[in-house]
């Protein structure tokens, strides 16, 4: 059942992508609303797919590649939809839904669809820790996409070769604000996630593993995005430089999510 819901949500995300891409080419109010509605529909369907998986393993799906990546995609969709409503901008939707579709297609191709055996019970605090951190990564991924669009838009503005989509892109100012909003969401989620993780570990072992590479890299991510928020309003960094910094920060996130998880940390191994 979870598989069918997963495929169905992928199909709905794809339909949403086509609607978003269409309005990027030629605006259409009704189609724009349909794109948002389809994205919301995809999110609801994916929620039920994740719920099915969660029921089987009795916790948030985090302990296998399919579960954690699926959760990531779902939270990315939610974060984007929230930002879309908050900033009243749909023109970024095509890029985000394309990312969602590619992510989910790769997931279905590469990861095992089999539901893993339930992991050892670790309690609600741990589940919140994982969910909040995944949410933070999703928000940072979104800020990465927005910053990339910012850089592309800025390049077009300076090159004076303005294609059809250029006139439909959000303004640099809007992209900047959306990227910052996304980073705020990510930072809040990551901070809360780290605190919960540390509390959980303290409850379990009576100590804090602050020397673990995963914790160190996570604290570095917090610092890097904190610096981004501060520098993005400064005279010398505001604009393109801040967008580049945001892109670089996400590379650290990717490093943390993959290399650190695989080879360095003693825990946090989901792959």
């Amino acid at each position, binding site marked *: 059942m979870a598989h069918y819901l997963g495929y169905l949500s992928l199909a709905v995300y794809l339909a949403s992508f086509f609607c978003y891409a269409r309005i990027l080419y*030629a605006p259409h109010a009704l189609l724009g609303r349909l794109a948002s509605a389809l994205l919301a529909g995809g999110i609801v369907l994916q929620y039920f797919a994740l719920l099915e998986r969660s029921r089987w393993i009795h916790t948030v799906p985090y302990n296998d590649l399919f579960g954690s990546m699926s959760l990531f995609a779902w939270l990315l969709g939610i974060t984007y939809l929230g930002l879309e409503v908050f900033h009243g901008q749909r023109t970024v939707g095509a890029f985000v839904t394309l990312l969602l579709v590619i992510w989910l297609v790769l997931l279905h191709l590469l990861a095992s669809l089999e539901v893993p055996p339930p992991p050892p019970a670790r309690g609600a605090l741990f589940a919140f820790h994982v969910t909040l951190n995944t949410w933070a990564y999703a928000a940072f991924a979104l800020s990465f996409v927005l910053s990339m669009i910012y850089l592309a*838009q800025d390049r077009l*503005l300076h090159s004076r070769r303005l294609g059809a989509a250029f006139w439909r892109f*959000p*303004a640099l100012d809007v992209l900047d604000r959306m990227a910052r909003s996304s980073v705020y969401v990510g930072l809040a989620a990551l901070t809360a996630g780290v605190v919960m993780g540390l509390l959980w570990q303290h409850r379990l072992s009576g100590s804090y593993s602050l020397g673990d590479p995963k914790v160190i890299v996570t604290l570095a991510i917090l610092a890097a995005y904190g610096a981004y928020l501060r520098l993005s309003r*400064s005279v010398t960094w*505001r604009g393109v430089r801040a967008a580049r910094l945001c892109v670089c920060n996400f590379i650290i996130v990717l490093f943390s999510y993959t290399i650190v998880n695989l080879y360095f940390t003693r825990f946090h191994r989901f792959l």
Partner: protein
Amino acid sequence: MAANSSSGGLAAARVHIALVGCNHRTAPVEFRERVAFTPQQALAAADELRRQGTLEEAVVLSTCNRSELYGVPADSGPDAAQAMENFFTSFHKIPRAELNGRLYRWTGTDAVRHLFRVAAGLDSMMLGEAEILGQLRTAYSQALDHGATGPVLNRAFQGALEVGKRIRSETEVGARPMSVGLAGVKLAERVFGNLDGHSALILGAGAVAEQVVEHLRNRGIGNLRVANRSFDRAADLARRMGGDPIAWDELESVIGLPDIIVTSVSSTGPVLTRALLERAISARGGRPVFVVDLGVPRNVTPDSTGLYNLYLYNIDDLGEIVEQNKKAREQEIPRAEAIIDDHVAKFESWRAAIEASSIVDDLRDRFHKHRELLIREKLSEMPDVSPEERARIAHITEELIERVLEHPAQKLRHGRGLRGRLAGIEALRHLFGLDEGKD
């Protein structure tokens, strides 16, 4: 002829639109200004045409690029358009010898298609311009309020407004800026988003700069400052543009305030140097500055281009963007034409439904009259027939007429293909001589 409820009180059986007019392609401005209608004249002309019985409905569309008279002729023959043309020339006192092919005439589907193309901006001097849709809406609203329109022109003009709106929202025909002034403002919107609450500084005063200011004002620019080497001229410009005048000496102190700078100073040396702009950006806390340099020679030193968070466009840059946009708009014409085809087909379908209903009503009237005559004639030779039998004969013949008409009525209303239905209507008209008047 019986009015049909679905036609909204349509009196005529044939839904026919005729158009006479001229535009920038067929007539020079000297001729167009002679045939222009003021709003009062437009309504007076519509009244007169209806009073004369030439038209049943009329709308006059008069802009700087066109004067057009749309109408529903009382008589759908070829003379109707000629009568409209005669009225057009006599109203403006134009000798026929001067027409010289400057007026065009369209009837039926061609007239509807022309109206839709006008609304779409495809027939405009500047492809896809938005103003024509507002002008068309105003002309129609005035005629509607005046009672000069009826169901046919209401349908056609409402369709045209829908076409215009759809084409501008679904295609790029009207999307991209086509003037240097608007291109500058639209580019500024790509940087700042909504210009409401932002500020601008205008240096010097050229015609294009005034265009830019007008577009900035239309977009709700918050604060507008005007500086000129002559303070009196700056004050005059500021008064006209609704801004604040700035003395040229104060330029250095206010240069960090505006988000947008439009400069068009006649000067041999640069007005804005790299150092000055650098200080401006720094004073703004690094927030971007958008500069439109309309001066020739350029008012901004070329080495300013690489400044961080400076978006600088000169007159050639904007001209190139306008040229790109013009090509892009032209590429959208097939998509716009497809939307027009779609709406023309809808109008034709509506016309076919109206005509199908009215022709069946016409046939029914004719059959009833024949039936009454026949019954009266035949029963007068049969005195033995009782009143009950007479009533029964009347009832049976009436039912016969309904049964005979049922099938063609269905075919005309719901038959396959619009063209087939319209051909059927024409065939019935011809076979039963319905165009030749009632017997």
